């Protein structure tokens, strides 16, 4: 009996040096002297390249606006003047090869990068009009307005119930009724309620990986966030658990504004309404997912989403 292998596009790290060498040898898939290599090579050389943003994006009502955002780790610039608007109640996917700054950008939205000593930023982001990088902005209050799910499931070492209501607990919510209600709603929202309703007070660490990740989503949506940030939420999960989390993202669409970083092109195309392609810290192209995957403006984007590089 043969097993049909599950096909995932696995992007491999490609350094600018490799890219330049490929270009010099003239062996790129789309032929020599193509604009793909031109654009990507100029990005690699550190030149500014304008982002291609589709009109449909601009028509949407934005929940989060990123405005000429730059970020440095020490002396190394990781994000170069990214400007984009995340639409309200839609799923937006960030794709790009490893090291292109997707996760850094995501972590900049809720200022988790503040925890890293050497980080410096310029530019701004606005959440429903409030400047995120305003010096007067209270970071803790800001983070309460967002939910985040990480690559690896990170349930807290406490019961399932306490995990879900964590953000309410730290706000000092003691009313049993409120907590119970939020717990059930969030777990139902994360499609986990039926699996754990009988063991809410067991340790969350006893759940399977996929359940843990959905628990983390439940925890993230418990505080009714304005934006939900998902940082490669399926990269540590098996295909079945991945499928469940993807179904969940489908269900969240329309109710939450979701910004998801993914390495998986199929996942981006299945789950998102809009897709942004990033490369080496720059936003290359941004538009409706169907267009990005079927008729992108740039051939570089096409090359990436079809797996010809990256």
């Amino acid at each position, binding site marked *: 009996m043969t097993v049909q292998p599950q096909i995932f596009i696995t992007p491999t790290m490609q350094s600018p040096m490799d890219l330049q060498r490929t270009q010099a040898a003239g062996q790129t898939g789309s032929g020599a002297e193509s604009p793909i290599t031109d654009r990507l090579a100029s990005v690699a050389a550190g030149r500014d390249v304008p982002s291609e943003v589709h009109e449909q994006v601009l028509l949407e009502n934005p929940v989060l606006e990123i405005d000429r955002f730059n970020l440095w780790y020490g002396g190394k610039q990781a994000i170069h003047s990214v400007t984009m608007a995340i639409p309200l109640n839609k799923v937006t996917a960030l794709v790009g090869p490893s090291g292109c700054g997707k996760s850094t950008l995501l972590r900049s939205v*809720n200022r*988790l990068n503040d*925890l890293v*000593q050497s980080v410096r930023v310029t530019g701004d982001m606005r959440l429903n009009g409030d400047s995120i990088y305003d010096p007067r902005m209270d970071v*803790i*209050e800001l*983070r*309460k*307005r*967002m*939910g*985040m799910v*990480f690559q*690896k499931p*990170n349930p*807290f*070492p*406490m019961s399932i119930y306490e995990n879900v209501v*964590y*953000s309410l*607990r*730290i*706000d000092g919510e003691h009313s049993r009724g409120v907590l119970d209600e939020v717990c059930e709603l969030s777990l139902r929202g994360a499609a986990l309620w039926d699996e754990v309703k009988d063991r809410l007070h067991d*340790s969350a*660490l*006893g*759940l399977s*990986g996929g359940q843990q990740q959905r628990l*983390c989503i439940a*925890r*993230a949506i418990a*505080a009714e966030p304005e934006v939900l*940030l998902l940082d490669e939420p399926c990269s540590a999960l098996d295909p079945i658990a991945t499928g469940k989390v993807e179904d969940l993202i489908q269900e969240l669409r329309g109710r939450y504004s979701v910004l998801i970083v993914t390495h998986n092109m199929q996942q981006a195309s299945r789950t998102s309404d809009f897709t942004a392609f990033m490369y080496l810290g720059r936003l290359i192209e941004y538009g409706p997912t169907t267009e990005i995957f079927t008729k992108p403006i740039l051939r570089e984007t096409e090359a990436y989403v079809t797996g010809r590089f990256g």
Partner: protein
Amino acid sequence: MSSETRRPRRLGSAHTSLAAHGEPWIWLTGGGLALAIAMITGLLAFIAIRGASTFWPAPLELLELSDGRRVLGEVTANEEMPVSAGGAATARRRLVRTENFEISGNHYEWFEDRSIAAVSLPRWATAVERMESGRLHGTPSRLLHGDEVIAEGPEKTWREFERLHPPAMARWRRALRIDRHDRGVLQRDLRAARLAVVQADLDGGRQSAGYARALEAEKRVAQRTGEQSARLDKETASLRGQNEGWAVEFLAADGTKIPVRLDGIVRAWQPNRLSFLGKAGVYFSRWWEFLSDDPREANSAGGVFPAIWGTVAMTLIMALLVAPFGMLAALYLREYATPGPVTTAIRIAINNLAGVPSIVYGAFGLGFFCYVLGSGIDDIFFQPSLVADNQPTFGTGGLLWASLTLALLTLPVVIVATEEALSAVPNSMREGSYACGAGKWQTIRRIVLPRALPGIMTGLILAMARGAGEVAPLMLVGVKKLALDLPIDGTFPFIHPEREFMHLAYLIYDVGFQSPNSQAAKPVVFTITFLLVTIIALLNLTAIWIRSRLKRRHLSQQF
């Protein structure tokens, strides 16, 4: 595949294959572990066997020597001894616990086997533990009340002794309790009243109304305590009077008559006629005395209860003091401080502190805690005692200062362990908490600390093990050879952190090496060591049990 078609590969020599498989390393590492385990278990087994066998009643052998001497005692050792200059000829000799110190001037004596004419186990041979001047080995001959002979002959005397001894002992104990405890309470009351007078003098001078009131109060207290003291005198006199004149006369092996007061006998047993159960009874009765009684005869006999109490109290107070200090310091260092040369320097300094000889901590404790802090407290709160008796309260060694000194000594262990535990908490947990909108302290309190607690407990266990066995600093800051007033007892205010206390580890040093007859004290030293090891093990097991409960709550088996 046949052997002909196989391509000739380079043939590994025995050496390369050995290196590749790493067999020697398995043997080397395994051997190292085995050696360590053998040494530790060997030491523990040695202590346990020697310590536990101290109280087992050994048979009393009567040695008749060829020169006509007769000796009654327990054979404690046998050895081969060279008799000629070159050591070619050897002879066996045995070490006998002869006791009867007042006759022989020895507790132990060596006898060569060839000088012994006959050995027997006399049926009525008795070992007598006396309140004073050590053990006696002999045969009961007469029971006397004044000049009157109540019983004669070993059998009758023993029967009468067994009948009369318990009530005499009860009276003796009652009188002792009155002297030690009841009179102590009266003296404390009297002293408190006297100090109140001094305090009133210091406050308002001799003309003040307060002084007059205090004087009046002191007079009342003096009168009351005087009456009570007279009553106690009468009671003790009556108790002692009833015991007066009762004595048992023992016949030593050489025929000397040794009379012993009936209430001067702690316990007597006749090992040669005891059944196994009878021996077990003596064994447990001696253990019970050891665990529950005050020491006698320069700590070499009796019990060690005050020392057990002092050891446990000091270790627990030390743990209570060092845990918050160490945790707070490590939390700041790991969670709040910006990493840099300063934190590195602090870390190195802390690690170095762990290597400072403990006597240095003792000197610091004496100089700072006792003389600076303690004297300061005395000046403010206990001035009357200082003025009237020239007696410091906190300005000298005591339980609190000893615990603090040891807390300081074990602080590096706790800080290092806590830091390790904190750094073992995955950063993803912290980030998850921050992303939920938790502040730094909320994250530490709800996520980091619970997760790190088992690791912190490990540090505390190590600290307790180190602290409980430490002697050198304690000698400077509060441990005494004899301190019968417990630091925690039933008299108000129940906890007396200023009191000096006894400690098992110090007792080992004192009994084993400061005692006038160290030979006789040797078995007791083993027992004390065994007890100390057991107590530390029990304290650690408790902490380990708590830790495993914490672990079960916070970490699951999965992943």
